[in-house]
């Protein structure tokens, strides 16, 4: 056995860092899913009738649908009756400020390295934290409110701003859009809501941290961001989960709505528990993320660093409806051990002079499978649409797989579409070159991988970029080929 293979065998000696649980009293729904559970969730949250109806419609639609089989991922059938669809940390009442939040809960977030109080004081990042299914604290709310910005948990938005929620909920991702979106629409328990009024430039990064804590629980959160005319917002999302032997389901929906001249930048660092070295456990991450550039000259940009989850099924997309609107997708997806990822984007050009840009960097190590799946669709009326796509794959070792599935549908002859793709291996020569300069193997891999992913990492806000770099290095620790 060559040394490379030995090193490969030592893959991920590093344990998952966020694999702890906290003992919090939780308020749970019984296992399983039926109309009563949907009603139970809605009642728990004290929702208005229209929302319950919406959920029930989604549930009925879901019953008629089948799980998609086209992604290049394989997993045993999910028993949807064996999942708890609602779990909330028990709290006497809604916390109005951090001082009222259960200290155990705050400790949870501190372990994540995102101490809310600290964030509040120092960094100027407004955070909404979602544990299991419920949003527990939102910082900086008052300061943002002064500017007319609404940033709160989804449940709160339903209560405080029902007209906005009613208007935009499901406007980008319809409740029956796909199997997992329908499931989410039926049982979503909380999430974040954000509204930026006309002409306002949100002065800080808005951020949500998602954490699954309870066992046998699915997390179904929903995020809705509306940027009114001429406004701007940058939004960050981070996620972790404890190590558990059984798989846990995460089926979220994110909707972005950009009106005329508005810009939304959405960044994700996804670090759900990926399962152990043998592929046991880990999160099934089936997420629907879509943005609508509704107004002319609007812009939506997705940046994602995907390192976690046993299975990732995720295609943050842009519907470019407004003339001169533009969409961007920057992605680094890392898979190691037995992880499987089928991720990419969809750019739908509807308006004239719409532009899109796709930069996807896949990194596969161990026995993992990493697929890029992307669609560029230029509709008939989208004159002078432009797209540039670049899909690169980096392989580490010889037991992993990288796949690229680009779909290009052009219905307008004035469209200009470019697609570039490369596949490379981290070369022994590259590693040796680093070693010969005194750089050890792990640092060498981190250096090479971060260099490879640089174009995407550069899109992240500063504090996130640092975290993402470290995460890449950790995820791939020891996996040289």
């Amino acid at each position: 056995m060559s040394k490379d293979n030995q090193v490969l065998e030592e893959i991920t000696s590093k344990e998952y860092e966020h694999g702890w649980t906290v003992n919090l009293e939780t308020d749970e729904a019984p296992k399983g899913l039926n109309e009563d559970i949907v009603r139970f969730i809605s009642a728990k949250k004290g929702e208005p009738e229209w929302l319950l109806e919406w959920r029930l419609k989604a549930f009925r639609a879901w019953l008629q649908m089948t799980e998609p089989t086209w992604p290049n991922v394989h997993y045993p059938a999910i028993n949807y009756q064996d999942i708890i669809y609602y779990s909330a940390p028990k709290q006497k009442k809604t916390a109005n400020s951090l001082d009222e939040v259960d200290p155990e809960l705050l400790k949870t977030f501190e372990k994540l390295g995102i101490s809310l109080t600290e964030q509040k004081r120092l960094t100027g990042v407004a955070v909404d934290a979602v544990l299991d299914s419920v949003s527990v604290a939102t910082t900086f709310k008052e300061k943002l409110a002064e500017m007319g910005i609404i940033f709160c948990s989804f449940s709160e938005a339903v209560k405080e701003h029902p007209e906005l929620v009613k208007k935009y909920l499901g406007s980008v991702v319809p409740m029956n859009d796909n199997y997992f979106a329908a499931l989410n629409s039926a049982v979503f328990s909380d999430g974040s809501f954000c509204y930026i009024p006309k002409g306002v430039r949100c002065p800080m990064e808005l951020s949500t941290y998602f954490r699954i804590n309870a066992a046998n629980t699915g997390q179904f959160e929903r995020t809705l961001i509306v940027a009114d005319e001429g406004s701007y917002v940058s939004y960050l999302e981070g996620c972790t989960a404890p190590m558990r032997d059984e798989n846990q389901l995460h089926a979220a929906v994110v909707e972005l709505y950009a009106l005329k001249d508005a810009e939304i930048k959405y960044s994700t660092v996804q670090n759900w528990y990926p399962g152990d070295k043998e592929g046991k456990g880990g999160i099934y991450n089936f997420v629907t993320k879509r943005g609508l550039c509704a107004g002319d000259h609007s812009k939506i940009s997705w940046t994602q660093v995907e390192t976690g989850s046993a299975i990732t099924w995720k295609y943050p997309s842009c519907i470019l409806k407004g003339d001169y609107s533009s969409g961007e997708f920057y992605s680094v997806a890392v898979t190691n051990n037995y992880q499987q990822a089928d991720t990419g984007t969809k750019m739908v050009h509807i308006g004239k002079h719409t532009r899109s840009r796709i930069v996807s960097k896949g990194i596969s190590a161990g026995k993992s499978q990493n697929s890029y799946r992307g669609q560029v669709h230029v509709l008939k009326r989208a004159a002078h649409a432009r797209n540039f796509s670049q899909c690169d794959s980096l392989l580490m070792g010889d037991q992993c797989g990288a796949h690229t599935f680009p779909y290009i549908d052009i219905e307008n002859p004035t469209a200009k579409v470019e697609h570039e793709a490369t596949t490379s291996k981290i070369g022994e020569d590259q590693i040796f070159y680093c070693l010969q300069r005194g750089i050890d193997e792990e640092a060498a891999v981190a250096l090479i991988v971060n260099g490879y992913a640089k174009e995407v990492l550069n899109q992240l806000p500063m504090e996130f970029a640092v975290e993402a770099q470290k995460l890449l290095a950790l995820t791939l620790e020891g996996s040289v080929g």
Partner: protein
Amino acid sequence: MLTIKNLQAKIGDKEILKGINLKVKAGEVHAIMGPNGSGKSTLASVLSGREEYEVTGGEVDFEGKNLLELEPEERAREGIFMAFQYPVEIPGVSTINFMKTALNQIREHRGQPPLDAVSFLQLMKEKMKLVQIDQSLLNRSLNEGFSGGEKKRNEIFQMAMLEPKLSILDETDSGLDIDALRIVANGVNALRSKNNATIVVTHYQRLLDYIVPDFVHVLYKGRIVKSGGKELALELEAKGYDWIKTEAALAE
């Protein structure tokens, strides 16, 4: 500084080094010459710790340490530097970033704290001047899109930054025009001191016009068959390698 005793190495089933003996003292420059396939680059690779080569016999002592027991990165940190014949490209990693990582790992090995940004920049500026390299090159991805001359100059810049005790230049002259050759050689000469040593591996005498060696060794079929002063290189240039081959055949 370096003592090689009866070093033997193979790649796959092919025996390449068949008993090399060589002594290099601080302050010296040794040239290793020889026809193609004689084992010159193999010797450089074995000294730097490339794993494709299997050492089958002999000893290498470097500054009192058994070199063959050290990992490649440990050899580098102990002060062995190899200027590669074909420097690899690392996209997205600038030479500056690369050097910062290397230097700090070497410093850590020596129990020194990492260099702060200001000192690093200062050191870099100083070395840039020494080897006549432009900062714009150092900001670019390592070796990506570099010309042959730029790649070799970058190697010498790295050598200047890391201040090795023993530098091995592996066919550094290959692919260089005369101007690039001169610049690279000037850099190497500027770095020469009584505390460090250099092994120049080359096929042609040309480079040795600029980097004047103290000793010249001729490698043939995995053995050093002739050693001498710098005049040996001139003799080889004039007469070619055939007479060496004949002499070696007679000796066998």
